[in-house]
């Protein structure tokens, strides 16, 4: 009992000291960076206030302490704060470099040799058995590659419509390969086609759905892409009814990449959510801020 009382008392004292030191340093920082003019103004006000109360002592102490702090520590503190600003700027540079790396990684993850070789093999075989279908798949492959490459160079050319179009080309190729094992559903209202949307994210999610959800499933399944606006948030989800997610499977560079890029582009305003609905399969949702009026 006694020990716990002492502990409580100690905790209280510690908290009080913590709080006091926090306020002291806050005051210290403020004095260090505030302009002399404003400091004089506060002196005048404090003098006036305590003068009216007829107890000028606190005011004198305040003036004395803040003057001392300002003279002694102001320069050093200011330099410290400036150094912090400089570090922040360096961080921004690092972030930009990381973004470039993320883009390169996205590109590499995108056109993976497996996909390319299998599609080319398919075209090769369709040329003999079904030339019109071969021409269609070939055209989709060209669309897909053309859309993938220059987009990586454009800094901010991504709209949702463009991403959907690109994904359709990819899905058309996968449908030619998987036939009736792959169903595709797009629920994207026309007005959202012009909404800005970062490149290569939708495709990564769709590819994951197919690669990890539907390809391993014997009877296959359906990929559903749905876009909607909920409370000024653009919500784009990719759902499949595949085998679901193994909790021991690594989440892969693709998702980590999306998360990092969302963080860089939108900070805490955007997020990537992964869920497994009760009916099975997996759902990945990207949520990012949506502005009603796209500025011209």
């Amino acid at each position, binding site marked *: 009992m006694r020990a716990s009382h002492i502990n409580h008392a100690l905790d209280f004292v510690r908290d009080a000291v913590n709080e006091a030191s926090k306020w002291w340093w806050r005051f210290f920082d403020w004095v260090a960076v505030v302009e002399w003019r404003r400091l004089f103004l506060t002196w005048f006000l404090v003098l006036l206030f305590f003068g009216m109360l007829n107890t000028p002592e606190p005011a004198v102490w305040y003036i004395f302490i803040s003057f001392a702090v300002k003279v002694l520590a102001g320069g050093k503190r200011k330099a410290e704060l400036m150094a912090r600003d400089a570090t922040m700027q360096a961080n921004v540079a690092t972030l930009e470099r990381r973004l470039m790396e993320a883009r390169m990684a996205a590109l590499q993850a995108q056109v993976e*040799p497996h996909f390319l070789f299998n599609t080319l093999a398919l075209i090769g075989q369709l040329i*003999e058995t079904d030339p019109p279908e071969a021409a269609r798949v070939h055209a989709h492959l060209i669309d897909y590659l053309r859309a993938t490459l220059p987009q990586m160079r454009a800094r901010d050319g991504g709209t949702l419509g463009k991403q959907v179009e690109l994904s359709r080309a990819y899905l058309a190729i996968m449908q030619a390969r*998987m*036939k009736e094992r792959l169903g595709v559903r797009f629920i994207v209202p026309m007005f959202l086609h012009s909404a800005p949307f970062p490149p290569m994210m939708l495709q990564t999610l769709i590819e994951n759905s197919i690669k990890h959800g539907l*390809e391993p*499933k014997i009877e296959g399944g359906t990929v559903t892409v749905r876009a909607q606006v909920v409370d000024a948030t653009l919500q784009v989800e990719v759902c499949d009814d595949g085998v679901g997610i193994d909790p021991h499977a*690594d989440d*892969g560079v693709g998702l980590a990449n999306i998360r990092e890029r969302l963080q860089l582009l939108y900070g805490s305003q955007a997020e990537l959510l992964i869920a497994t609905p*009760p009916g099975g399969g997996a759902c990945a949702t990207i949520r990012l801020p949506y502005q009603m009026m796209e500025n011209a």
Partner: protein
Amino acid sequence: MSTDQTFTALIADDEAPMRDLLRARLQAVWPGLQIVAEAANGLQAVELGEQHKTDIAFLDIRMPGMSGIEAARQLYRHSHIVFATAYDQYALDAFQQGALDYLLKPVSAERLATTCARLRTRLEASRQPSRLAPAPPEDIGRQLAQLTALLENKGKAAAEARPKSGYLRWIQAQVGASLRMVSTREVLFFQSDEKYTRVQTTSAEFLIRKTLKELLDELDPDEFWRIHRSTLVRVDAIAEVSRDLRGRQMLRLKNYKGELEVSRNHSYLFQQM
């Protein structure tokens, strides 16, 4: 020549166009070969292969349900195995060293003709004498086992898919009707909270039933450290360690406001170098 010289074959590929092409090619280069079964996945391939006991099995390597290599491990005793793949550098390396037959997709007529000629002589040789030499299945079995091991290990580094790591990578938290999958890379720390364990990410907080002890056993020990009886923290998320007035070590995390206490038992984790 005679009727007992006809052979049977099984084709397994999850992509129908590929089966069509292989069938058409086989009919052209080896009209006598009877394609008695076609399978669209590995399980079906094993089932049909056991049922028909075909002389030859053409197996795609990547198939849902069961890979072609796994299927081959069950079928090689009565069928000659020929693998087909469009791109699988590790498998190709292995094939080139071993005695296993393989085809590159899309299958060219010339390549298929050579393979078929070789198969034919082998099959005829094994039928003609006194049925005493059924090839060396043990050898094939061993090669297949090696191949499986090789693909499982190499696949990890190669396929940027989700390799099986053995450690827990996703935290499943019930949110409404569905199960949220929280990647361990998003988690800042786990903290036991009476009956539940609290999972903290930069943007959200979840409660799960798994105990800290269970998590400790399943998570990657290099990814998460135990810093307190009731706390597991993600190493990457640690920003700095400081001491408070009572001399306790406190952790500050990136993108998170609060602090975490390091117990004395675990303070050795944060010694100065």
